[in-house]
């Protein structure tokens, strides 16, 4: 269990352990976890700041209704973290305000 988390896991050795990163920090997860559940288990409370006022928010409903747990998962912004299952090596980042748009790729950028 990550230090600082009020959340514990039931004693269930059956589930496979996975690792992912959140804002660069390594997080331990179990197979079957949603990304949001794994983060909560690891003591993460804030997963984004809002595009309206910039205040912090975290997961709220965990069932795809509220869209509070929007995060960047493997490079895709504004994904509902409660609706995606953890995969080994997944890279997750918090969202800071609105999603961003890159300039056009110039030919040769790949």
């Amino acid at each position, binding site marked *: 269990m990550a230090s600082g988390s009020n959340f514990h896991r039931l004693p269930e050795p059956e589930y496979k352990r996975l690792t992912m990163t959140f804002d660069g920090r390594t997080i331990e997860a179990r197979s079957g976890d949603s990304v949001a559940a794994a983060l909560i288990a690891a003591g993460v409370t804030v997963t984004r700041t809002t*595009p309206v006022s910039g205040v912090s928010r975290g997961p709220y409903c965990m069932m795809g209704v509220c869209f509070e747990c929007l995060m960047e998962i493997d490079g*895709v*912004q*504004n994904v509902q973290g409660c609706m995606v299952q953890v995969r080994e090596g997944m890279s997750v980042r918090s969202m800071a*305000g*609105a*999603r*961003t*748009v*890159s*300039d*056009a*790729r*110039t*030919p040769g950028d790949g």
Partner: protein
Amino acid sequence: MARPSYDVIVVGAGLHGLSCALNLAREGLKVVALDKDHPGRHASGVNAGGVRRLGRHEAELPLTMAALEIWHRIEQEVGDSCGFVACDQIKVAESGSEADTLQARLLRLRELGYDHEQWIDADELRRRVPAIAPHCVGAVLCAGDGSANPFRTVMAYRRAALSAGVEIRENCPALALSPAGSGWRVDTPQGPLDGGAVMNCAGTWGNTIARALGEPVPVTPAALMLMITERLAPFLKPVLGAAGRTLSFKQFDNGTLLIGGGHRGTAEPECNRSRVKMVGLSISAQTVGALFPQLADVRVVRSWAGLEGMMPDDIPVIGPSSRADGIYHAFGFCGHGFQLAPITGRIMADLLVRGHSGLPIEAFRIDRFAAADMAAMDTPEQRISA
């Protein structure tokens, strides 16, 4: 029993109807505006809000110029900003032949004495729209156009009309039209109303009055679709269109993207509703994908369709009836009437009060269609008898 009596009965309290009512009331006339639903239920309330001169039909140029002047001081006109923001409008060329077409139009505009549209090359386009796909070769730019919030605009006109003394009757369709004394009687579920004149601003349903007067026009209903995305960090200042595709694309101040493009949903005017069709939205999404490939992961949060009256020559009917005194038409704006609304009301008030408008409206006369055009159109259920 005294029947309610007005100088003018405006049928249809959408944006054009409200603008007519407001301008007529400001001329000191007693005006009632009827709406079968409520103001802004269809095209007026749910369009893209483009305040655009770019790409206008030649016949509309004098009107669009005059309308823009009012838009730039819309707060004085109706007491609310209507969410109007001035910005550039850009129409992108994706190939040399598209560029040729756009430049031919620019030449024609110069001949007519207009210079509001300007050519910009690929580098300048990229400077103004850094996110645009690299294959775009240039664009036409119209500086000083803008966009506004449609529903807010309708509500602002509604409030302004009410405070100018207009009576607005909602859920009050015009059922029948008949001559009464020197004027007209309009039967409604709320009883008959007498008016010295009638303004037909019934949008998609405008033909029902025209038909009753024996001057039907080939107007067809269309459900024009729009969609809107989640918020994005600011990346697009101008409103964007494309020469070779139907597209209206802009980013609001709040970061959301509005994607329109004239693709049509299912219009059911007889049921008073419309529905989006995913096939058309899919084409709009493909268009955005071609011009901004990096937006593929952006989420669409809402889509909708608004019922609008389309004309075969893509311009509205504006002017007096060719058959009956005291009846005036302004409908069939073909999906680009929003910008014109402030001036339509002015024109209609001038026609009624002064007998003429200072602006050229000959091209919009109701009897411009030949019998052949009429034969080609379907005949929707007639609701009004005269």
